[in-house]
């Protein structure tokens, strides 16, 4: 080939190029045209009449009231409902991100049927008629085979009346297996059950407390009812009111909560119980505890003899003998002076409140830590006082839920009378399914929950799902659990359906919000309530008669009628009126704004709901339902259960019959294994609390802001440790536990303890929206057998090693 270029060829080439350049727009006009032609620029935003509608958020169990701005038929902004007592106009970032849930491009648009197999599902869109017919056929068949009890329902935390309907459906159909996801309050709930005898409604008067001592609770990062907790935090620090309340966060890591607290006390992970008991030691030795309360309302404080005359150690003796300050300082690695000061402050600033003892909503905490922490509340008399630990009264209509439907049902799959705690533990479901005992599960319905992703033993859950012949999911998105289903019947998202919610966790007052749908469904989805009502109608028989309602709205109306029948409470009003109502109610006057159930219904729709804003303190029969009728430092329920389970003593390294088994005590910490020198503690962050939210860009963009990490998991490590390991900030590293390993980006974080590393929960999805499929799920590296054997909640400690990838 002739490579010689002469002038002519060259000029042709160069000239052609020049013409091309000129034509495609080096001239200014051309540039403008070019730019406009290459990319259509303007995003046109349609206009329309403006309107506002109320709704309820169900992105976490709190159920904040929403006020939605509508432009025509579009929802363009979510704000807080200023009348709603839970959030009073405020909202957390999750609630605000609700718009991205509604308009998410990866929502399921119609019912999906798995036409492949469980291993490699292939999804086919089907009609609602076909979908419902498939479920009805299956349920009918099971009922005809007398296997109705082999159907289970797993549900999340959203909705309360809705849950009533689910349970009524299940019971009337003939199954006892209604299971709910574990919650972050399970530890406190367990302590309240064992020490106070109450099985639900753990509540705190956060706003009224003068001293909040939190043991590792993510107070400001999604715990309980996030927005009302933040409101309380704001109220503590209101400059006009004077700063009375001190908030102390006890936690190994400098979390956002710890950073925002008045004081952060860094302790050795897993030694919360010892610190609590060390504080009890200060309270007892310095006479700072509430002598009268302890004498009148508690059991097991002093040494005592049982009916058989056996001598038992009291709480006081145990603390005085085993939790002296030096011992506690050695266990917790907190200086003696700090423990002493904490004890004094806690004793002197009343009402003081101690909360926590657990790690996060997805991981079980150590039961004894919860017991020790709750004991502090009893010591300073913070039960049933303003600013103390309370027990929420039941919502009218709750009591009878259980009784509707069939009376004689077979035993629950995972829960039985001999269990320590009165609620079913979902984490035990996989083992029950895999073992086929007490019976094989034939069908599983999953609503508002993603156990495969969020449970610590999610992988085992996934294995177990493969054994269940029929799995139906109601998830509006494809997630880890629905990916294992045979059928997905996508639910509406919040704004498209009738929304309702009861009191959020830790909220002291009974409450019920109700809101009609804000807009037309965006896709061919259906409210699961309506789906179940349709199923009930088609199934006929007992189910149809238990749920004769034509629509979900009708069902809700009937439930509201029960609230009306209770003749108490008020519809949502301004906080000024709230104060007035409370005042008049204490004086014995109840002046409702409504006079009929109908009126109540209309007013609830208008303001957002109904609540009972008055707490009646000192209803001891209601709040102390232990065998002794007192607060039990020595839990007799625990004693009874331990007696039936001798293996517990052995696991704890104690003699059978040792009183410590039933008294709060510090459990033995495992030694650090040589080959895995770092402790891995997963952390919950507000944007992804409960493991949900990774598919929402709004939340991905704000998660990890404290280490400037976005859209991906990160590993927090103290720079000192990293230097020792020869690692640099931003390195890709492997985190390896005996169970598995994950590749994550390392972030230097001064707030991490040198021997501990942290990973955020909520990342590492493998199904659904690409936005959510980022990072790694630390739960996959954590052993989940902590409580499998006996059912005693026990904190897990996972050791890992970290090395450069």
């Amino acid at each position, binding site marked *: 080939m002739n490579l010689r270029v002469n002038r002519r060829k060259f000029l042709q080439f160069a000239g052609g190029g020049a013409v091309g350049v000129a034509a495609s727009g080096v001239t200014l006009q051309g540039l403008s045209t070019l730019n406009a032609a290459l*990319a259509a*620029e*303007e995003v046109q*935003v349609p206009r*329309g009449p403006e309107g506002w509608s109320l709704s309820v958020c169900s992105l976490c169990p709190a159920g904040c009231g929403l006020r939605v701005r509508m432009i025509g038929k579009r929802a*363009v*902004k*979510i*704000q807080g409902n200023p009348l709603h007592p839970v959030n009073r*106009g*405020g909202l*957390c*970032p999750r*609630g*605000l991100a609700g*718009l991205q849930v509604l*308009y998410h*491009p990866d929502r399921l648009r119609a019912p999906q049927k798995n036409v492949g197999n469980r291993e490699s599902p292939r999804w086919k869109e089907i009609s609602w008629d076909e979908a419902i017919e498939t479920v009805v056929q299956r349920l009918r068949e099971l009922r005809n085979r007398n296997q109705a009890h082999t159907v289970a329902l797993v549900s999340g935390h959203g909705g309360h009346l809705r849950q009533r309907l689910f349970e009524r459906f299940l019971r009337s159909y003939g199954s006892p297996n209604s299971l709910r996801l574990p919650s972050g309050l399970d530890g406190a709930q367990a302590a309240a059950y064992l020490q106070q005898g109450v099985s639900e409604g753990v509540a705190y008067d956060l706003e*009224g407390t*003068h001293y909040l001592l939190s043991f590792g609770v993510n107070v*400001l990062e999604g715990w309980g009812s996030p*927005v009302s907790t*933040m*409101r309380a*935090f*704001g109220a503590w*620090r*209101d*400059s006009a009111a004077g*700063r009375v*309340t*001190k908030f102390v966060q006890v936690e190994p890591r400098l979390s*956002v909560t710890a*950073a*925002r607290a*008045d004081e952060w006390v*860094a302790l050795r992970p897993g030694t919360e119980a010892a610190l609590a008991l060390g504080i009890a030691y200060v309270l007892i030795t310095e006479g700072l505890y509430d002598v009268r309360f302890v004498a009148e309302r508690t059991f097991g404080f002093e040494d005592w003899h049982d009916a058989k005359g056996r001598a038992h150690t009291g709480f006081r003796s145990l603390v005085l003998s085993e939790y002296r300050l030096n011992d506690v300082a050695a266990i917790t690695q907190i200086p003696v002076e700090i423990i002493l000061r904490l004890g004094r*402050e806690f004793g*002197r*600033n*009343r*009402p003081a409140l101690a909360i926590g003892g657990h790690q996060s909503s997805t991981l079980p905490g150590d039961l004894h830590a919860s017991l020790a922490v709750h004991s502090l509340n009893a010591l300073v008399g913070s039960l049933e*006082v303003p600013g103390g630990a309370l027990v929420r009264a039941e919502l009218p209509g709750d009591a009878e839920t259980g009784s509707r439907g069939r009376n004689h049902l077979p035993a629950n799959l995972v829960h039985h009378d001999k269990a320590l705690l009165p609620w079913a533990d979902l984490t035990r479901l996989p083992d029950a399914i895999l073992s086929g005992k007490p019976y094989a599960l034939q069908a599983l319905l999953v609503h508002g929950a993603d156990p495969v992703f969020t449970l610590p033993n999610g992988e085992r859950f996934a294995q177990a799902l493969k054994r269940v012949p029929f799995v139906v999911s109601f998830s509006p998105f494809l997630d880890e659990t629905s990916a294992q289903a045979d059928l997905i019947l996508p639910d509406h998202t919040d704004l498209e359906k009738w929304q309702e919610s009861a009191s959020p966790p830790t909220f002291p007052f009974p409450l019920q919000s109700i809101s009609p749908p804000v807009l037309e469904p965006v896709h061919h989805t259906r409210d699961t309530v309506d789906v179940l009502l349709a199923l009930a109608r088609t199934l006929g028989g007992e189910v149809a008669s238990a749920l004769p309602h034509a629509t979900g709205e009708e069902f809700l109306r009937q439930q509201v009628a029960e609230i009306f029948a209770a003749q108490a409470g008020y519809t949502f009003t301004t906080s000024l009126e709230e104060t007035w109502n409370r005042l008049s109610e204490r004086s014995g006057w109840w002046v409702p704004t409504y006079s009929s159930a109908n009126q109540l219904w209309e007013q609830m729709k208008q303001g957002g709901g109904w609540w009972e804003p008055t707490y009646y*303190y000192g209803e001891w029969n209601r709040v102390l339902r232990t065998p002794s009728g007192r607060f039990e430092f020595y839990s007799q329920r625990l004693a009874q259960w331990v007696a039936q389970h001798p293996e517990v003593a052995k696991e704890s390294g104690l003699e059978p019959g040792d009183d410590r088994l039933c008294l709060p005590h510090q459990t033995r910490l495992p030694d650090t294994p040589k080959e895995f020198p770092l402790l891995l503690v997963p952390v919950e962050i*507000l944007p992804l609390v409960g493991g949900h939210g990774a598919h929402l860009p*709004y939340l*991905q*963009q*704000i998660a990890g*802001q*404290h280490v400037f990490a*976005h*859209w991906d998991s990160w590993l927090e490590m103290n720079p*000192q440790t990293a230097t020792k390991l020869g690692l640099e900030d931003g390195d890709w590293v492997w985190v390896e536990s005996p169970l598995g390993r994950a590749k994550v980006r390392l972030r230097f*974080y*001064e*707030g*991490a*303890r040198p021997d501990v590393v942290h990973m955020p929960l909520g990342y590492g999805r493998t199904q659904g929206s690409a936005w959510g499929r*980022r990072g790694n799920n630390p739960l996959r590296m954590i052993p989940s057998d902590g409580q499998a054997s006996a059912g005693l909640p026990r904190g897990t400690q996972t050791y890992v090693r970290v090395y450069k990838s």
Partner: protein
Amino acid sequence: MPRWGMVVDLTKCTACQACVVACQTENNVPCVEPEQAALGRIISWLKVLPEIKGAYPRISMQLMPLPCLHCDSPPCIRVCPVGATGITPEGVVRQIFARCIGCRYCTNACPYTRRMFNWYKPNFPGELQQALNPDVTVRPKGVVEKCTLCHHRLMQAKERARAEGRALAEGDYVPACVEICPANAMYFGDLDDPDSKVAGLARSPRAFRYLEDLGTEPKVIYLTEGEWAGGKEKPRQP
């Protein structure tokens, strides 16, 4: 003429970042792809900035919500070659999206890094476009954008007040971030009205302005964290 300003009480702030998301939804701020976020190209008119000091366990972390501070003497508006940014008589530092040539001089002149650039055409995939607020233009690619103190809300509040035949009252006009704050840590109002809440707080001994020694005279004023002064021993009566 009012002089709009904001007070952020750092004592009350929980660093929940609700303000960040509220701002995004209100002002049609697009979310960027993860790969873009890794380059730091997240567009946020309001951001919570962490500052960590000390070594474990004696360590503190400050988390500070940082919108555009609407300086009275803004370094950004002086440098704009085309006058696309300026300060309104009411003290709002505004940006004319349609005039901006995208030279990013203002972004570099702002000592607070509070001006954002549209690296790409904003993307609202799928139905997300439905959630756009018609009161705020979606910015095209290649221009700089920033916090406007929800200026459209001011216009609406003024219209409403005019229709009702009254003057603008305190609380009529509040930006989305202030409105949503669950801990009520943010206040907004007229700094020139000596009786307004913000003016009162701005006079507080706890008040400071971020990097105030630069002479930018911000109208977003922070209140320092302060400390628990020791409580009272007497329990509150039930």
